[in-house]
């Protein structure tokens, strides 16, 4: 098996979660990389929707911004931004929302707003974008994030986007319709919500990763599933397609080394 990086493992593991034919609302960055890898490997019929308006986007290279022209060129259609949020998302047409975030807690709530108090923030983050409504109304949510103690925190300073709120039945009680986050894919492992408590539990460790490494990079006392599995390492094809995609992207954006 070829060598691969932890970041490649994360992207491949996330891509595998996206079924063929799935209608997916894609966030920019890591989610977009994973969703396009899925489309270029096992899920050629996945329908990718970006909040800027493209539906059925098939970009040649990864977009650097959510509204890159390449997203529009090969899309099935391009609609206005209000239409995306009103007819397609709120209208209930999205199977999977694919998101990233700056911070996450044990119930997969996300913070992309502030570190510190809202009115006197230590760090002002970009804000909500489309995430609160995507996470509320897509059939389910996949979250992809590099694992770090500053990102996987015990308590969020701000809940931008509701995951499973305070756990148990709190998400449903709040009136949120979709299933919410069903998996969090990191560079070390895959976490899934416990069926009862909805707390994130490590269900899969990536090859070579130990439970202690995951503990060290998680800000809460993280739990592990009894039947803890090992993620399958990336195949030659997955790695080749991913590397080609990233290379094309760097060349196209002039951001290559």
């Amino acid at each position, binding site marked *: 098996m070829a060598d691969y990086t932890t970041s490649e493992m994360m992207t491949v593991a996330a891509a595998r979660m996206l079924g063929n034919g799935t209608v997916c609302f894609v966030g920019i*960055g890591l989610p977009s990389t994973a969703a396009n890898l899925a489309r270029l490997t096992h899920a050629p019929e996945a329908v990718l929707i970006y909040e*800027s308006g493209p539906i059925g986007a098939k970009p040649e290279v990864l977009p650097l911004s959510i509204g890159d022209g390449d997203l529009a060129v090969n899309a099935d259609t*391009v609609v*206005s931004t209000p239409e995306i949020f009103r007819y397609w998302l*709120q209208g209930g047409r999205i199977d999977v929302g694919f998101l990233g975030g700056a911070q996450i807690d044990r119930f997969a709530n996300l913070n992309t707003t502030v570190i510190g108090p809202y009115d006197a923030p230590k760090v002002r983050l970009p804000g909500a974008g489309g995430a609160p409504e995507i996470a509320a109304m897509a059939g389910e949510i996949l979250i992809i994030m590099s694992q770090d103690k500053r990102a996987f925190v015990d308590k969020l300073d701000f809940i931008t986007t509701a995951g499973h709120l305070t756990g148990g039945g709190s998400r449903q009680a709040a009136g949120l319709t979709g299933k919410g986050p069903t998996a969090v894919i990191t560079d070390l492992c895959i976490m899934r919500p416990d069926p009862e408590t909805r707390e994130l539990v490590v269900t899969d460790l990536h090859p070579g990763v130990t439970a202690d490494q995951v503990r060290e990079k998680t800000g809460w006392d993280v739990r592990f599933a009894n039947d803890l599995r090992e993620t399958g390492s990336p195949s030659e094809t997955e790695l080749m397609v991913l590397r080609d995609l990233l290379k094309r992207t760097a060349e196209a*954006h*002039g951001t290559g080394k």
Partner: protein
Amino acid sequence: MAKICSLAEAIGEFLRDGDTVAMEGFTHLIPHAAAHEVIRQKRKDLTLVRMTPDLIYDQLIGMGCARRLVFSWGGNPGVGSLHRFRDAVEKGWPHKLEIEEHSHAALANAYVAGASGLPFAVLRGYTGSDLPKHNPRIKFINCPFTGEQLAAVPSVRPDVTVIHAQKADRKGNVLIWGIVGVQKEAVMAAKRAIVTVEEIVDDLEADANACVLPYWVVSAVAEVPMGAHPSYAHGYYERDNRFYTAWDDISRDRDSFTKWMERHVLATRDWAEYRDVLAKTGGKV
């Protein structure tokens, strides 16, 4: 009626101190040239509305033109932070900036409500988010028919909306295509609208369902080639990703930002001269 004029005249006549201004364009067709002209003419106390503040509002905020910002995602797309926006919110430089923060869905709906002549927008949104705790302009109402709880936000009704488009004809009818974002809604919601275009042509050659803004909903049209740079204009030029990356360094520091703006914007007569200076400096301070 659309007045065909220079950008300086359009801003001079239709965009005033204290106005609520929406400059829209979702990554695509961001009206950068128009924002530079607002900075040159030293407009102040503006309420700036925009889903993604981007570099365009980073510049206006850093130059002290804005009193208040209404937004839903404030980053440098694909790069990281907007440093001038952050400095204003975190440290109050060059002065304190009031913010009204939303989600994209809410702000997109608020433009639709504004264009529809309604006082507020209603959506299924914000549930479980902390945003309503900090933004008093997000409220919840019950559906009069089913009782379902829904979010309500005030409509966006700008004094003036500014957009960039690909083409206008000589009467001032405007054609826009590709990722059209919320531009049509933003224009229809506003009292006045200023449009910069890549070119003015004899015939728009627009299909029946094309996104055309008729001349009589537009106040002024100015021909400004490359007027969206470093954003892009579909069919004309691509996004200048290098500039977005370079902006991270230029804007990180107050002094380097100020020097850059003085050299490239305040010391230039117009967008054409700015483009010349930019070519010479290579974007460096």
